[in-house]
């Protein structure tokens, strides 16, 4: 699975996710990536793209949950991402990338690693696997 999340200079957020799914999957299997709210979500607060065990991400409505806890619990982006990965994955392994309308960017995963790269206008840049 691959994904991208962006907040532009106007503060508008967007997210996109694309995948081939699981190796040896049944024909017709649909995972989390095309399900808005599970693998992908964006609103006026943040944008999120998820990857990992699709069925666990679906059960946890992971992408939407990040936005929901920011909106209803008042958490900032990092707190929301930590909460969702820590509490909402139901023993599944997954990761996500997220940006906020304030220009924050973060990623979090509970798997062994996640291929990711982040950058911000203030010069921050990180590329990592582990």
């Amino acid at each position, binding site marked *: *699975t*691959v*994904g*991208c*999340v*962006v*907040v*532009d*200079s106007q503060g*508008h*957020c*967007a*997210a*996109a*996710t*694309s*995948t*081939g*799914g*699981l*190796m*040896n*999957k049944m*024909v*017709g*299997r*649909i995972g989390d*990536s*095309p*399900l*808005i709210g599970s693998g*992908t*979500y964006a*609103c*006026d607060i943040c*944008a999120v*793209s998820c*990857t*990992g*065990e699709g069925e666990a991400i679906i059960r946890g409505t992971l992408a939407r949950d990040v936005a929901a806890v920011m909106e209803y619990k008042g958490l900032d982006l990092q707190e929301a991402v930590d909460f969702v990965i820590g509490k909402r994955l139901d023993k599944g*392994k997954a990761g996500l*990338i*997220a*940006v906020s*309308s*304030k220009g*924050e960017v973060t990623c979090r995963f509970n*798997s*062994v*690693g*996640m*291929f*990711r*790269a*982040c*950058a*911000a*206008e203030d010069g921050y840049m990180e*590329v990592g696997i*582990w």
Partner: protein
Amino acid sequence: MGGWAIAVHGGAGVDPNLPKDRQEQATRLLTRCLQIGISALRSSLPAIDVVELVVRELETDPFFNSGRGSALTEKGTVEMEASIMDGADRRCGAVSGVTTVKNPVSLARLVMDKSPHSYLAFSGAEEFAKQMGVEMVENDYFITSDNVGMLKLAKEANSILFDYRIPLESCGAAAVENPPLHMNGLPISVYAPE
């Protein structure tokens, strides 16, 4: 306002024994795609255009599990899916079960922009793709020899796997000698990193 920001991912659940050269290949690809996004943001492209642009690039490179290089179904074919969402007005588009569309994320964008719906799947998505005139290819364009090998392994293990590419020395007998981490009930060594 905090300025622009961007993040890109190529999948989770990486084999801890991924060879150095594969790690370097992955980081080079991620860096290249990140730079494409950064250039687009510096050119004041809106967020929705930037995410589509970057994911198209990731779909075209066969390294990760999307577009070319996608995981295979039990029948050895490719079925892809993608979604895109614009946070400004929460418009969204998604496709599933696409088999001949070169860039599924762009088809998802067209569902969002040019159809009255949010999600199209299988034959309906393919028909919409033809109507929209997107670039279409044969299904075998997306199939790589690495993935044919991984499907064979998966069938031998009688399992459904995350599509992660692994070095051969990290599976089979070598994996048995060093008790593996587990994910989804299966040893991490049978997963190939994306």
